[in-house]
């Protein structure tokens, strides 16, 4: 099951070239980054980034791994994208320089530095999030993890969910504080196919 893919191993992660890390590519149709933020102290508002790509490596013997995730900021989607009688929808507002400034920063990226394992499964990921050109540490907890054959296409995959939290002001996104919360909870649903 573990092939030695030297080329990929050298490309992907600055790990010691371990015996056989496997590389997985995130499935764009089943990998999304969700976020939740306090809205006016009244409700928790949810949103999602629809276009996410990247890959992760896994070496369950050496208990090492790495992940790189790229999110297209313009794909932000909170369900409010029809103007009605307003000058702009919320999703349009989120794309401008008040929030994600997608013209100047079309992507935000997450790159791991260390992955801690619990048995054979990754448990926490330490890494850096780059958002609006600012890079800050972000740890993710792996809440759910499973590897096996996809029941329909029979390809090898690993999937699960991960969570973490950031303060958007740390990245310079200060618009509407504190009416719209500073703490942003992140929830990632993901699936990746072994390459």
């Amino acid at each position, binding site marked *: 099951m573990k092939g030695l893919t030297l080329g990929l191993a050298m490309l992907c992660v600055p790990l010691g070239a371990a015996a056989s890390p496997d590389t997985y590519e995130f499935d764009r149709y089943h990998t*999304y980054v969700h976020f939740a933020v306090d809205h*006016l102290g009244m*409700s928790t508002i949810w949103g999602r980034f629809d276009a996410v790509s990247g890959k992760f490596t896994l070496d369950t013997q050496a208990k090492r791994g790495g992940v790189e995730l790229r999110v297209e900021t313009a794909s932000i989607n*909170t369900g409010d994208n029809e103007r009605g009688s307003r000058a702009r929808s919320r999703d349009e507002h989120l794309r401008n320089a008040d929030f994600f400034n997608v013209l100047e920063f079309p992507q935000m990226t997450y790159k791991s530095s260390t992955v801690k394992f619990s048995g054979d499964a990754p448990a926490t990921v330490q890494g850096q999030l780059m958002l609006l050109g600012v890079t800050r540490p972000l740890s993710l907890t792996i809440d759910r993890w499973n590897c096996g054959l*996809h029941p329909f296409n029979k390809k090898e995959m690993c*999937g699960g969910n991960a969570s973490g939290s950031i303060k958007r002001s740390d990245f310079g996104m200060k618009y509407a504080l504190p009416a719209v919360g500073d703490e942003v909870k992140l929830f990632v649903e993901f699936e990746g196919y072994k390459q």
Partner: protein
Amino acid sequence: MRKIVVGALILAMPLAAAAEAETFAFDPPHTFPHFALDYAGYATIYGRFDKTAGRFTIDRAAKTAALELAVETVSVTTGDNERGSRARTRDEHLRTADFFNVAEFPRMTYKSTNVKFNGEDPAEIEGQLTLLGVTRPLTLKVDRWVCKVHPFYKKFGCGGNASGVLKRSEFGMKIFLPVLGDEVRITIMFLGMKQ
């Protein structure tokens, strides 16, 4: 601050016309039902409905309330709406007769039958969900509830979050069971502006 809104009362709810009932209309840009279910034992997949309409009445002195929410099933969105090389996207598939059958059932509705209070605040809503033409009980727990003058709209509103669980098979939505989970967790974020 409390007015008797007789017209809306008579129209909206089969409540006893209580002394000081207030009527609120759900604000569409800040009212979204979300759902989560298990995907093939690998990950929890999230989705949302973008278009809702409805209202609730509340009489905090008498501790009674009622609500009605209509959801446009065609507005289902899970982030997968670009076909790529596939015959259809997941969101397109969800709209077909395999899932929500939006052509035949353009709306699903939730109507409360009883609301339990915790002090002056609604705590639990008993009601009926009609989905795919089938009506079944659904109880929602109010997880968050705040009433105040909205800082931007400058009108009085009540907002919060509510959650519940249902089994989609009970409404006749049985495709892909058990690979795609039966239990669906519902989370609603809402804002109602006083009429």
